[in-house]
């Protein structure tokens, strides 16, 4: 997962940051140095305590994507969409017909834009001006594409 440097704003993936492995202080270090300006920023995702609190506060999904779930930097299941991230529904997966109809009644269908409000205690998404609470097993079946900033969320 990419992070943005607090000093210069450069975004990079701390996991792919080779220089950390070469650093003698790497073990148990929760800092990550920006490859652009060298500033040592806190890597919240590297801290177990911060991750637990983040999940408790509903800021992140309860678990990382499993092997069977399609993820990339652009599309993922709704279940893993970060809080506050705008996305557009691109596919409704294996959902029984009656439930699918109900989701449609709420406006959850392909092409619709939405934002995740929280992940816990139940996932809540916002589309148009409606807040919908849905459990993760439904959210898992909805594939979304992350929207670029400033794109209309329809």
């Amino acid at each position, binding site marked *: 997962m990419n992070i943005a440097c607090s000093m210069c704003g450069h975004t990079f993936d701390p996991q792919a940051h080779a220089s950390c492995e070469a650093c003698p202080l790497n073990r148990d270090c929760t800092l990550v140095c920006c490859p652009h300006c060298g500033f040592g920023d806190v890597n919240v995702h590297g801290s177990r305590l911060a991750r637990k609190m983040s999940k408790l506060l509903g800021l992140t999904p309860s678990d990382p994507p499993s092997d069977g779930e399609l993820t990339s930097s652009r599309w993922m299941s709704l279940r893993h969409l970060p809080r506050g991230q705008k996305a557009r529904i691109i596919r409704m997966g294996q959902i029984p017909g009656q439930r699918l109809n109900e989701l449609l009644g709420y406006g959850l269908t392909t092409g619709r834009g939405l934002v995740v409000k929280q992940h816990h205690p139940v996932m809540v998404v916002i589309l148009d001006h409606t807040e*919908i609470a849905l459990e993760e097993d439904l959210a898992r079946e909805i594939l979304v594409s992350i929207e670029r900033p400033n794109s209309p969320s329809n």
Partner: protein
Amino acid sequence: MNCHTPTATKSGPRSIALIGQPNVGKSVIFQHLTGTYVTVANYPGTTVELARGSAKELSDTNVIDTPGILTFPSRTEDEQVAVQVLFDEPLSGIIQVGDAKNIRRTLLLTVQLVELGIPLTLALNMTDEADHLRVSTDLGTLQNLIGVHVVPTIAVKKVGVDHLMGSFNGTGKTSFQVRYPEEIESAITDLESMLPQGPFSRRALALFWLTQDPQAEAWIEKQTRCETLKALRDRRGALASSLGQAPTAVIQKTRFDQVNDLVRRIQHTEGQAAAGPGTVLGNLSIHPLWGVPILALVLLGLYLFVGVLGAGTLVDLLEGRLFGEIINPWLTGLVEKLLPIPFLTNLLVGEYGLWTMGMTYAIALILPIVSTFFLAFGLLEDSGYLPRISVLTNRVFRFMGLNGKAVLPMILGLGCVTMATLTTRIMENKRDRLLVILLLALAIPCSAQLGVVMGMLASISFTATLIWLFVILLILLAVGWLAAKVIPGERTSLLLELPPLRLPSLDNVVLKTLARLEWYIREVIPLFLLGTGILFAMSQFGLIKLLEDFSRPLVTDWLGLPPETAAAFLLGFLRRDFGATGLFIMEAQGALTPIQVVVSMVTITLFIPCIASIFMIAKTRGWRTSLLMACFIFPLAFTIGGVLNRFLEVTEWL
């Protein structure tokens, strides 16, 4: 296959139906259109309440407030009643109430209602909230595009409501029509030629048939001959084969795409509105950390209003003063004077008298408690807070094989289990409804009983209260978890709209409370009197003493209670709070030790529900289910009571 000869459609006084999605303000608009004279009754064959009233502005016209429906085809019992109204009532018009800030969802229902061919007006409600969110809709263009009158309203402020009744398009015909893919249009044409003439357009009937709406299917099966029914089914099957998927999915998607196109042409959102206090409070109410203390505060408020004011102050005034010191002594004297026959005097004003026990308990003890409870529940309901409790408690119910929606009947069960049993229809399938009814019957004490139980336990110690609470919660969770494994069917995951938090409309809350109380008085009080009559008969023929002797091994040896408690448990079957009150009197007389109080309170809480609840379960689920539940709950309650008795004797915690 049912084969029926076609029957004529019903006729009668003209009606206008209010139709719309949940939480859009239908009930508020209904009140404005009808005034004070309203009847609330169960729709025939269902447990769904339907409100009807005479239209203030149109003579000889009724207004029907239908349950909320998200979209056709109908899913839940409530939605099925909404569809059934379309078939059964001679509708001269439909007023669809929609949410102005959620125009897409509103229009999804509108395009389906337009297909019916019944004169339609769209009341776009909550326009003030839409304005606050800077959502603007070009109503003139919308009106031109769909050919339906669109009236902006703010129902809680009575804005725009006056224009609704006179706004119908006279014929119901409009040039707007959803154009489906060619295969579906072809199927519609074929079906139209086979379908009987119904209360609305054949095109709409064909679409109901293709989307397999259960109410439409039932109506068509009644109206159609065997051969035609087979042809209808074959045509639907052929369409599904050619599409490669259920026609419902394609039909709904087509409607949605058309609605999207409409919305693009009529709606604009200008920037983002600042979050008001309602939005902030709404966010906090479902926050994983802040939501819990907010819920605790709400429950505390509920306890103070119902438990302290209702069960304490009001009961004291009514039962202690008014009935105890004024009405009952006067009436007893009068009856004894006018009816010198002891049997009749005892029947009316004796120890198990219809008045002194039945009516006094019903009016002086129970009514104030359920009144305050229904009022508090109505406030929570109208404020939009109840769905948020579903979100907060979803994990707990998930453990029990349910979802957070179950919390709503559970909370209502704390007021009256009989009424809560009716509310289980909000659960999506039979399995979930059965599970919730079982838990209601087993472990949810009604407000009257809860008041007595809390009072008795508090007079012993806080430990006693904790033990009672712990045992009840443990049984609730354990039985819930086990029953979810045993009862066949899949768990339904939570899917729920969270309406914005808003100030409750006091008019609406008071009227709903009165409607609930009217139901309570009509349905439950006769059962009170029946129960009292049974007790009286038993006392006259010495059966209560016989019962005490018969139940000695169970009550005295196993539960460790005095033999007189048998009568309290029998009373508890008739009304759980009767039983608890009987034990309360024994405790006040010093006839029960602390351990005996806790054991008897746990047993009577877990005991089978009152006779009114048994009848309600039988009404909703059948007598077989009702009796099976009783056969499970009865021995479980006594088993737990006996085990607890031995445990407390060994541990000496009390």
